[in-house]
C-alpha cells in the first residue's frame, strides 16, 4: 500500500492544512517512507491482545476519577479572551457560517 497525492489532499483537508504544491509531493514521499517502517508492525500477531490506551492501566482496572457537581469557576472572560484574534461584545468572531 502506498499513499497517493489524492490521499494527501484528503488528509490535508480532514486536518485543515492548506498545503503548497511542493509540500504535497514532499509529504507524500515522506509519509510513504515512514509507512515503510510501519509494515513490520502490521505483520505482528496480536490476536487476543487487549489494546493499552492508558500506560499505567497494565492491570486493566484503572478507573476514571469523578468530581462532585459543583459550579465554582468565576467569570474570567477578559483574561480568557486576551489572546483571541477577533472578539466583539464578548463573542468570538469568525467568517460567516452557512448551514
Amino acid at each position, binding site marked *: 500500500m502506498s499513499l497517493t497525492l489524492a490521499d494527501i489532499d484528503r488528509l*490535508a483537508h480532514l486536518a485543515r492544512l*492548506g498545503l503548497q504544491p511542493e509540500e504535497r509531493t514532499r509529504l507524500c514521499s515522506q509519509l510513504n517512507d*515512514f509507512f515503510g517502517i510501519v509494515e513490520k508492525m502490521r505483520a505482528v500477531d496480536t490476536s487476543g491482545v487487549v*489494546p493499552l490506551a492508558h*500506560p499505567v492501566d497494565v492491570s486493566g482496572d484503572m478507573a476514571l476519577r469523578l468530581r462532585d457537581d459543583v459550579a465554582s469557576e468565576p467569570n474570567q472572560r477578559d483574561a480568557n479572551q486576551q*489572546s*483571541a*484574534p477577533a472578539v466583539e461584545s464578548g463573542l468570538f468572531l469568525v467568517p460567516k457560517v452557512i448551514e
Partner: protein
Amino acid sequence: MTPSTELHDLTVAELAAHLRSRQVSAVEAAQHFLARAQSHAHLGAFLDTNPEVTLAQARAADARLAAGTAGALEGVPLAHKDIFVTRDFATTAGSKMLDGYHSPFDATVVSRLGAGVAGGAPGAGMVTLGKLNCDEFAMGSANENSAFHPVKNPWNTTRTPGGSSGGSAAAVAARLAPAATGTDTGGSIRQPASFCGVTGIKPTYGRASRYGMVAFASSLDQAGPLARTAQDCALLLSAMCGPDPDRDATSLDVPAEDFTRTLDADISGLRIGVPAEFFGEGLAPDVRAAVDAALKEYEALGARLVPISLPRTELSIPVYYIIAPAEASSNLSRFDGVKFGHRAKNFKDLNDMYEQTRAEGFGDEVKRRIMIGTYVLSHGYYDAYYLQAQKIRRMIADDFQQAFQQCDVIAGPVAPTVAWELGGHGNDPLADYLADIFTLPASLAGLPGMSLPVGFGAGNMPVGLQLIGNHLSESRLLNVAHRFQQATDWHTRRPQGI
C-alpha cells in the same frame, strides 16, 4: 559562600542551603542567573525572560525566607520549558501558532515549584528565570524544530543539544540555571540530558500533573526535572509530583513523596537488567564504551548485571510514531484561529481561514505528524494502524513486567550516538525517529526513566546512561544514580568556557 565558587557552580541543594542561611539573597541569585542568561544568549536557550517578574518573585521569596515561611527550595532560580503555560511569561510551545500567547493560568507543575497552587498547598518557592526553547509542540529530537531559533549544545556549539527539551538541557549544562523543567513524551528529557551531560528524570506517567502542559501526546506526555545531579532532580521531582484530582483525570492517586529520603541507600546486590536489544549494531562504539564502563562501575559498587531481553524494542518506533501523532493530530485541532493564537491575515471563507491559519502557524514536522495521525485514525485504517499499535503497546508493557521479574532496574544507552551536528539529519525526519529507539519503550509503558552523565564519546561529547525502573520506582532510580555520582565525577564536568 567560599569566594572561589561562583553562584552558578552551586547545586540546587547547595543554593537552597545558602539561601536558608541567608548567605545569599534570592534577589542576588536571580540577578546573577539573569545576567548569565543574557551573556549566553548566543546559545538560544531562552525564548522569554521578564526580569521585573523574576525579581518580584525573588523579593517575595526573600520575604518568606525572612518570615520563616520558606518553601523547600525557596529562592532557588529555575527556568521552565516553554511547553508549560505561565501567567507571567509568554507561552509559545516553540510554535508560531502561539507567538505572543499569554495563558490566564499557571501549569500545576509551575505553581508547585513556585509560590504554590492558588488556594492550595504552598509551593517550593523557586523563582522563575524565564521560558526555555524547545521543539515545536515538543516534536523533535534536535531542537531544530523550534519555530524561533535552534539551541546550540554548550559542549560544542555546532552540535544539537537534543530535543525536545533542548533549551532546558543546554541551560543547565551552561549553568544559566541550576535546574529546569522539561517534558518527555518519547525521550525528550532523557535524550537532551544525555547530549548535554546533565541529569534528568521522567517519572511514571501520571506522577506529575499534565494540567498546563501544552499537549502533544496525552497518553505519553510527562513532566520532569533536569539538573546537574540526581540529588537535585530528587529535590525538584519531590516538589513537582502529587495528585491533581481537580485538573487532571490521569494524574495518579499517589501522595507526594520525598525522593531524597533513600538517595544514600546501599545498592550492593542490586540487580541491573541489561537488555541485549539495546546493544545491537545500531549502537555507536564510543557510546557503547562509555555505557559499558558505567556498568562496570556499578559492578564495582556491588550491583549485579543480569542479561535480559526486551524483544519488541525495534517495534517501539512504529508503535510510538503511530500513537503519538494520532493523539497529536487531535490535540492540535484546537489551534484553529478562533479562540487564541495565530489567525491568517487573508482568507476567502471559514474553511480557508482554518487551512491558511494552520498552514502558516505549524512547522513542517508538526504538519507531518498531524498528517500521519489523521491517516492512522481515518476510516478503514484505524484497526490496521492505531489499534494494532495499541495492542503491541500492551505487549511492550508486558515485556517490561517480564524483565522486572529478573531485575530491579534496567540500564542501557539513552541514544545510539552522541549529539550530532546541527542540520546533521538534514531533511530526513526518519533519521530522527530511528534515533529515539532506546527511549521509546519506557515511554510507551509509562515507566520512569532517567539519564545521567557517564563519560564522553566522539568529539568529546557527553554520553548518558539510561536507567529504567518499574512504575513508581523513582526513589530507586534516583538512589541508583546518586550512588554512581557519589563514586564518579562525570556530572561535575563543565563545557569549555562555562
